[in-house]
């Protein structure tokens, strides 16, 4: 039985392979960008408020900081209690064009030893976890020097 691929959050990312992108929104009045997407009100207090339209974010950015989870995170994070916990690296990435920092898990196999502040990384499609019917998809950050 094949599982359905479902984003862990609807509307935050889309596309396959090289076309995979995080999706934010942009205010038509002041050009502020929002991720996670803001679909109702521009947060810029100096902006009268413009239409918010979906915009793909830059594919590549630079590591602002990074760390890892050496212990299993609690619910609502989903992990298989039957399996021993493997440390998961997390990377905060500065996107130059949008001038914001986005946190994400590192691609499988990437550890803190592979990372440095300022290093270039790119967003890639990833799998958060799977259950009987569904493959829950997410975004991962991966150093640009590394191929899957």
């Amino acid at each position, binding site marked *: 039985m094949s599982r359905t691929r479902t984003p862990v959050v609807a509307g935050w990312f889309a596309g396959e392979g090289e076309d995979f992108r995080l999706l934010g929104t942009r205010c038509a009045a002041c050009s*502020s960008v929002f991720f*996670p997407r803001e679909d109702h009100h521009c947060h810029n207090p100096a902006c009268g408020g413009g239409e918010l339209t979906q915009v793909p974010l830059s594919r590549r950015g630079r590591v602002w900081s*990074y760390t890892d*989870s050496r212990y299993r995170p609690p619910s609502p994070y989903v992990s298989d209690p039957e399996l021993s916990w493997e440390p998961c690296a997390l990377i905060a990435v500065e996107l130059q064009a949008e001038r*914001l920092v986005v946190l994400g898990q590192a691609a499988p196999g990437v550890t803190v030893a592979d990372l440095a*502040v300022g290093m270039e990384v790119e967003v890639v499609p990833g799998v958060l976890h799977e259950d009987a019917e569904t493959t829950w998809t997410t975004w991962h950050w991966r150093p640009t020097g590394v191929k899957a």
Partner: protein
Amino acid sequence: MTGEVAVLGAGMHPWGKWGRNFVEYGVAAARAALTDAGLDWRDIGSIIGADTVRGGYPGYVAGATFAKALGWQGARVTSVYAACASGAQAVDAARAQILSGLAEVVLVVGADAAPKGFFRPAGGDRPDDPDWLRFRVLGATNPVYFGLYACRRMAVHGDTPGDFAQVKVKNAAMGALNPKARYRRRVTAEEVAASAVVADPLRLLDICATSDGGAAVVLSSMEFARRHGHADPVRIRAVSTVTPRYPNTVLDLPDIATDSAVAVDPPAETFRTSIARAAYEEAGVGPEDLSLAEVYDLSTALELQWYEDLGLCGEGEGVKLLRDGATALGGRIPVNASGGLASFGEAVPAQAIAQVCELAWQLRGEAGDRQVEGARVGISANQGLFGHGSAVIAVR
């Protein structure tokens, strides 16, 4: 100047992992504060509870919960929640009532009974709640954010894990002198280095525990204080409860991303810096006037960040200040003479009130073996999830 309120009494239930209901800790702290103030509970015109989300409805309405437990006497009641800043918001609400004349004497209480292990969001699926999302999508516990800040400091300022460990060594040494602290044993840098990594580069002993505890203060108008024989009380001169300014470009708990600075340049000062500046401006003092500071050392690295955010030293100079011994007992500006969160562990709604208790005892010269000589001006600082600034300046 806004006007001052008097701190007539301070009380705490010792921090620990006692496994009892939060109400018990809050009532013990309240009774201790009332005794310290020389007042009866029935003298109190207003009670303000700092809420805990872990007690169900009684926790969400902590003011009434504590009032009932102390015995209904008709006092005005308020309950406030601002995550880690709840206690400071409770103090701020009390001050506003006193300065506006709504109440003459107010009891402020916060208490928590913390779970074992990581803090986690309340149950149920809440995909609109950023705090739920960061756990669901990223498994980003609080220590993950502490790890990000620590790693960033290492890259930008050249701090090392050995520097971070020295913060723990300092705070544990002071906490060993505090009978209210949960951990009362000195710790060596070797012990920190031998503890397990939780969120690289931070180890277990770099990160504060979660604790049970309760803290309370009795605040009053200066006129009430004089009438009741408190000729020279500790006074609260400023309470900062500011929010960030757009765009907030430092990744903060529980956010998955920062604001974008593409349309508006970031403000000249960070959120945490603005918390302290607002307090200094209101109090009419500066960092050079401080005798001591109580800061929210959720992690060792975060304490170093507070040194800079409070203006105790320049940006990137936190480690130098620590290494020079300035922030230890006997130094120029002792930080966390109480032992800090390193020695207490966090009891969320009680913690910012506990910071004010420590300021009160220090300014009265009643801090025992951990007394800061000649303390005249103290600041407490903390930051609550979702953009809650918190700082209190007390003087004597």
